[in-house]
């Protein structure tokens, strides 16, 4: 907004003064004479336009961002006044960064009382951090009253709704947001993920496809699209999506893993194994190794499956699924293979094999009784 003239402010009636305050981001509350002086001061200061120097409020804002919230709080305390809400927002942000959520909320409340709309959003973040999701959603609504289609507010609200378990409401907000901002790929991706969470795989795939169209370099979006397609029973399309992701980033571990799983669901064991092995080569993650082990098991490559289970147990010694897998494979011994392996192993490992044998014997017992 352009600055009103001094004469305009001096002769403004009360509603006009309040409107000017709202436009200039000034506190509109108080005796009219004081509010008028507040606006005049602001206009005079802006008209003079002194050369920029880092004032305490600038330093405070920088300190908050640099990770020194306590120092920032001290500076904000010196500059906050009742004539403008902005320093209260800064003060609240510093308090929030220092982990003092209660105090931060109070500061944002103060700014919101001065009719600073953005303070509602900051307040929502503080309340969200405190776990008061209902309060956070209400704050978002308060902001949205005056800024119906604001992207940040809608995204925040959707996030809080989803965190609170109100998936359908969250989806509705995101659908509205995508209508208002159809060109924002993140929104489509968010909507797609939310629909996936709600197990509405078909609309999820549609939303994710739109996200992928808007952002040609979006690898995670393509992965999500692949998952949506896979879950909606279209593994062939899913494979296409994963391949697109791998074209953008050939060593993307998650894409390799998911592609392996997609091939597995289509019964193409060889391709599944190739991709899972490549994924496991890049990152020894238990989830990937478990997929690999299971695929090896399905492919009846017992030794390789066992090897994969052992790798998982080296990373996570108490992994129940890996333990069960190893036990299962040990329960179906192939004498020749086991004898050969036992001979190759070091004495310590041989002891392990013995214990596995014991375990297998124990498991065989109930079968006999059956």
């Amino acid at each position, binding site marked *: 907004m352009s600055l009103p003239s001094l004469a305009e402010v001096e002769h403004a009636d*009360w509603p006009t003064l309040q409107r000017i305050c709202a436009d200039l981001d000034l*506190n509109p*509350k*108080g*005796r*009219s*004479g*004081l*509010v008028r002086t*507040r606006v*005049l*001061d602001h206009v*005079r200061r802006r008209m003079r336009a002194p050369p920029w120097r880092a004032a305490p409020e600038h330093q405070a804002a920088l300190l908050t961002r640099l990770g020194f919230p306590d120092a920032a709080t001290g500076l904000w305390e010196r500059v906050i*006044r*009742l*004539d403008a809400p902005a320093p209260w927002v800064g003060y609240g942000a510093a308090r929030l960064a220092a982990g003092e959520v209660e105090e931060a909320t109070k500061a944002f409340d*103060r700014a919101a*009382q*001065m009719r600073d709309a953005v303070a509602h959003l900051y307040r929502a973040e503080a309340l969200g951090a405190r776990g008061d999701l209902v309060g956070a959603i209400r704050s978002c609504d308060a902001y949205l009253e005056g800024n119906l289609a604001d992207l940040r507010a809608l995204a925040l609200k959707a996030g809080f709704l989803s965190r609170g378990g109100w998936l359908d409401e969250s989806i509705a907000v995101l659908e509205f947001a995508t209508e208002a901002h159809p060109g924002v790929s993140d929104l489509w991706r968010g909507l797609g993920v939310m629909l996936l969470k709600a197990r509405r795989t078909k609309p999820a795939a549609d939303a994710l496809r739109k996200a992928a169209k808007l952002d040609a370099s979006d690898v995670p979006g393509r992965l999500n699209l692949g998952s949506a397609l896979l879950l909606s029973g279209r593994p062939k399309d899913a494979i296409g999506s994963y391949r697109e992701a791998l074209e953008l980033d050939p060593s993307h571990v998650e894409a390799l893993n998911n592609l392996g799983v997609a091939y597995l669901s289509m019964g193409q064991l060889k391709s599944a194994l190739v991709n899972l092995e490549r994924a496991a080569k890049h990152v020894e993650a238990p989830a990937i190794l478990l997929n690999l082990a299971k695929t090896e098991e399905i492919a009846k490559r017992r030794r390789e499956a066992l090897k994969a289970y052992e790798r998982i147990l080296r990373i996570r010694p108490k992994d129940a699924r890996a333990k069960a897998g190893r036990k299962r494979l040990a329960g179906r011994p192939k004498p020749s293979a086991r004898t050969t392996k036992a001979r190759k192993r070091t004495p310590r490992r041989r002891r392990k094999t013995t214990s596995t044998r014991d375990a297998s014997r124990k498991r065989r017992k109930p079968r006999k009784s059956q």
Partner: protein
Amino acid sequence: MIGTTDDAKDRYLPSVDRLEDAMRAGMRALDAGQPDEALERFNLALKLKPEYDAAWLARGHALRQLKDSEGALQSFAQALRANHESEEAWLALATTLRGLGRRREEVEAYDELLKIRPRSVDAWVNKGAALHELKSFRAATACYDAALAIRPEHAPAWNNKGAALLRLHDEAGADRCFAEALHFDPDFFDAIVNRVLLLQRRGRHGEVVIWTDRALRFREAAWLLYVKALAHLGLLEGTLAVKAFERALELDPKFQEAKEGLREAKGLRQRVDFFRGVYECFGTHEAGDPGCEECEISGRCREVSP
């Protein structure tokens, strides 16, 4: 080349050339905060032209920077001997006399200047200030009136007149003068502070808080914070009073009255502690004002408003 040098010799006397060089070098040294160097240059200039008023004046300024007030006084007197009508020399002489505490002579210096330049606003205002310090408040007010007749928008003259009227117990007149001063210069620290003192005298705590806050934006001083804290006490705002006393003590840890005030404020906070929220004008209720009609704390505000 030889011809050019001869021409220069014909056109300038060598001493004049050197005189200007010495003056320029002296002024440069004075601006750079090197009064010793400047004094040397001005002395050289005076050797070349002993009756040069600008050199005496500059020498006086250098000596003032060197805290040699008597020497400076002599220099300014010499400057006036060389040029009796130099306004700058009269003002410098009067200022030096003020620094030496010779108020009557200072007033006389302004009188002399006003004989030569009767429309010199600075002379009228400074004469008024000297008379104020001599406790001749009525004469001081007359000087300010003379200055304001020449320049009605002169904020320091309005402020000084207000201060003189305050000493003459004309609070209403003083208030009007401070209002005029702040109308012409809203950021005039002295006028803001004078208004704070007037409001404090009248027991208008709400307005004291508003105006001390304004003054504190320009300069943070322990005594101002102390005044602010007292006003918060008057408005039964325990926490705000404690904060102001604490800040005053941070700035001046030996401020005894602030220590006592802090104790009192902490005691008050346990009994009553009002929270003004977003209302900067708390304690200044005005019946019929549209802002006051919308106010959420008007009940409490009315109670503490005078």
